């Protein structure tokens, strides 16, 4: 299935958001995730199923003003 992760098209075998984060090599607790613009808490990633064309954001702490 083809999804969009942080604005880049990604071919993935992951069925859930939790699986995708693991597949992509992120440390689960060091990113916050959103699926199609909606926040998905860490504990809910297991049950957040991906679909073709899903837009996923995995964000980290960054410098800000």
């Amino acid at each position, binding site marked *: 299935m083809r999804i969009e992760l942080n604005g880049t098209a990604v071919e993935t075998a992951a069925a859930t958001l939790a699986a995708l984060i693991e597949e992509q090599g992120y440390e689960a607790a*060091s990113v*916050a995730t*959103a699926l199609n*613009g909606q*926040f998905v808490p860490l504990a809910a990633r297991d049950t957040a199923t991906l679909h073709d064309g899903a837009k996923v954001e995995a964000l*980290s*702490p960054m*410098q*800000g*003003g």
Partner: protein
Amino acid sequence: MFYGSDLQNRLMLGTAQYPSPQVLREAIAASGAEVITVSLRREGTGGDAFRDILKESGCRILPNTAGCHSVQEAVTTAQMARELFGTSWIKLEVIGHADTLQPDPFALVEAARILAAEGFDVFPYTTDDLIVGEKLIEAGCRVLMPWGAPIGSGQGLRNKEALKTMRAHFPDIPLVVDAGIGAPSQAMEAMEMGFDAVLLNTAVAKALDPVGMSRAFGQAVSAGRAAHDAGIMPRRDMAVASTPIFGMAELA
């Protein structure tokens, strides 16, 4: 004070645009700031190093929703920030215009209402408009952060009379001048006017010597606050001699 937290040091410092992570680390320490602002972005390089700086600083983290232009974006970003930083504090920015970076007051109030209902401690980046301030308080905000001037402009307090009015209008709400401060004298002036804190970033990060400048800002904010607490003398239209006339010699 600020959602139940009192702060000895009233400078809130942004963490962006420093020449190096080491300079950022030293600038935070030199300023004495107890609150630093951060953001959320797609993972780039240096993420781990930044996390270490945050931890080492011992500062309270105030995540922002910088760059968000809609209620939905800002709310989702705030929710993500709460999980990632483990804090209910959020500097709520909903930008209305890309050039001026002026807040969109309508979207701001709407986002603030949603977040306050979800238990966030909202620090809204707003204008000096009193009615918008009232609506934000009605929405659940217990702090207001009016701009001094457009973000990154270094123009200082562009509308002093309006800021004074705002201070008088909200005597019991902590007010933070956020954005537009360029020089320590401007930060000090805001504190002398009775503002509770000053939030800035570019003025320090883009100084020739950011560490020296952050120290200067720390001192200015502290001096301004002390001056306000000590009670500044009223302005007079005429001269009033400070040295007594009594006992003066006749020499003419």
